[in-house]
């Protein structure tokens, strides 16, 4: 790997239970007490022609809205790669197809629902809109789908295979699936929906404040080994997926108990809720914190996420003093 090539976060955009396509959540977050909170839909009129938007499911509209917003802000119109993470993909269309299959049997089904039900419908739609013939991949691996996509983009940028990548994570939850998840995911606090897109770049053409220094995916790691990885560097703030639910929090607390030091910690799930793409909001919040930490400081945040204590991820973000904040 070319050690010289760095990977920066140029721009980001989010749609969630907070006000969409902006950062009002920082000073004025919406607070929720419900178990299931849907995303606040973005106004897409300036981003997607209404005739096209009408034919898109919620997740597709949100994904296109965050992608176009992040692209516009980055100044890159034509990314070298489009890489997406999604835990359950186009759930709304898949569910409708299944309901029709149950109600009407195998003879009156709609092709559009099937065509827009695969996980990679999202990445493909963005490529079709942008006419991007470059690398296009989609990861669907529980709560580390986003990190898998990010790792793919990061490795290719570091290797010089691509210069930049539009990378995102998108998950929608239907009312029925929220009822199901209440049973199948008792570790969640409140179930939410997430769309987050980020432009990553080698920084040859642009500069940005925040750099991705490392990404690790770990399957059922030994807690002591994971702690040893974090003990190597005691400086960064740790961003944890703590949500107040002991079923979710216990592995994080066990990890903290194995550290040689008491780190400062941040969390994000109280603001953004739980879904298979919620770790993308840890990334979003982490990058925003570093962008705003002051030009003269070295800022470092390590994002730690686990999905059912089976899949773990560690992402190291860093901001060096004097690096220019684009905007």
């Amino acid at each position, binding site marked *: *790997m070319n050690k010289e090539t760095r990977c920066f976060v140029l721009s980001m955009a989010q749609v969630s239970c907070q006000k969409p396509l902006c950062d009002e959540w920082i000073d004025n977050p919406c607070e929720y007490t419900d178990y299931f909170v849907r995303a606040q839909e973005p106004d897409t009129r300036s981003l997607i022609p209404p005739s096209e938007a009408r034919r898109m499911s919620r997740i597709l509209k949100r994904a296109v809205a965050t992608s176009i917003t992040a692209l516009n802000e980055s100044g890159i119109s034509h990314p070298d790669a489009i890489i997406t993470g999604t835990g359950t993909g186009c759930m709304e269309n898949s569910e409708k197809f299944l309901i029709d299959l149950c109600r009407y049997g195998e003879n009156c089904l709609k092709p559009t629902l*099937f065509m827009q039900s695969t996980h990679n419908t999202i*990445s493909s739609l963005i490529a*079709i809109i942008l006419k991007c013939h470059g690398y296009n991949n989609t990861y669907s*691996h529980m709560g580390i789908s986003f990190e898998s996509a990010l790792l793919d983009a990061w490795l290719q940028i570091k290797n010089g295979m691509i210069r930049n990548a539009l990378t995102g994570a998108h998950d929608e939850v239907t009312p029925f699936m929220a*009822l199901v998840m209440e049973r199948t995911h008792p570790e969640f606090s409140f179930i939410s929906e997430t769309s987050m897109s980020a432009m990553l770049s080698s920084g040859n053409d642009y500069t940005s404040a925040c750099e991705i220094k490392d990404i690790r995916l770990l*399957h059922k790691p030994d807690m002591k080994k994971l702690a040893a990885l974090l003990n190597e560097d005691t400086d960064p703030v740790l961003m944890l997926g703590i949500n107040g639910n002991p079923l979710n929090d216990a592995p994080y607390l066990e990890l903290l108990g194995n550290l040689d030091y008491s780190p400062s910690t941040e969390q994000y799930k109280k603001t953004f809720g739980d879904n*298979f793409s919620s770790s993308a909001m840890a990334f979003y919040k982490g990058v925003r914190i570093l962008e705003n930490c002051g030009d003269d400081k070295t800022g470092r945040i390590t994002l730690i996420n686990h999905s059912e204590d089976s899949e773990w991820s560690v992402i190291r973000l860093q901001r060096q003093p004097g690096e220019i904040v684009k905007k």
Partner: protein
Amino acid sequence: MKIFVTGTGIISALGTGTEATLQSLLSGESGIDVIRHLSTGHKEFPAGEVALSNEDIAGMLGVGYPENGLRTVLLGITAAREAVSSASLADTDLKDAAFVSGTTVGGMDKTEKYFKSAFDAESKTEDSLELKYNDCGYSSAMIADNTGCFGMVTTTSTACSSAANAIIFGANLIKSGVTDIVVAGGAEALTKFHLNGFNTLMILDMDTCRPFDRDRAGINLGEGAAYIVLESEESVKRRNVRPVAELSGYANTCDAFHQTATSENGEGAYLAMRKAMDMARLSPGDIDYVNAHGTGTPNNDASELAAMERIWGTQIPAFSSTKAFTGHTTSASGSIETVICLLAMQHGFIPPNLGWRIPINEGGIPITGTDKRKDIRNIINNSFGFGGNDSSLIFSKCQLH
């Protein structure tokens, strides 16, 4: 940096295991037949089902709940265990290794069984717990955990190019030094969901499929799983194992034309093959065989042939689609056809394009009889998915050290 293939595992309508697959290919016997296991009213469509029932496979593997009710997982474990053992990987080799698997339907077969009762009861019955396994990631994690203790597991999901993209990501993990060993491929069971989905698109053939035939009328679906072991040169030397082949080039591109149709000039397919050859530092004349995606739909085959003509003109190398052997195994097709390519290379034959009769045009004549060639040096394996997701892998004969 060179990346080698050091092991293979496969299960499909052609049989269980690499050796059984080889024998079926050499005998020219298709695995496509009437649907027996899948619960569907659409028995008019033939398919490449794996002959074994879930009970048979679960018994063979010695696995219980929930794996025994998830056909994708059962097929996946069968192929992954064979790949790991054929590469002589020990438990200690796997602890830092990655498992990357492609799937799209995941545990949809279980969902189909329990969705109605869970939906009608607004999730108030135990049946809704079974819907958890619908997620692609659980399938991969279960396959991985029943194969060995892997250090990293993830899932690609790009419809019919999923397994090829798992192999591409696996290769990038090795090139980047993240790990030395990756077990990569894909698994997909036949489900009512996608059989009916493909049927709504009116691209299923009621007869046996005829890829690249002028009168081709669509797909026969199939199912199965295959994994290959990818390994760095250093690891191959350290473990003193004999590589099957080198993964010398690969590329993924996007046709960026339509969610389920491909462009007339095969732009995505053309770019994928070109870029893969660039990476492998091969020129078109170096390619001895193309294992085409060749689904048998009028659109795919015309578009893929157009892409091949853009690269080779009238000099297209020997090519065939093996989908008339296995059916279209969707997310698993990239790795199933990779294993077929590796067998062709090792045993010096080109698998025939079964069912073909009349050419689309003068140049588009696939190999039909079992073509015995002594030396197949470089093979391109194409896998194209919905959304114009186009992947090409190049496998090259490697010099034994």
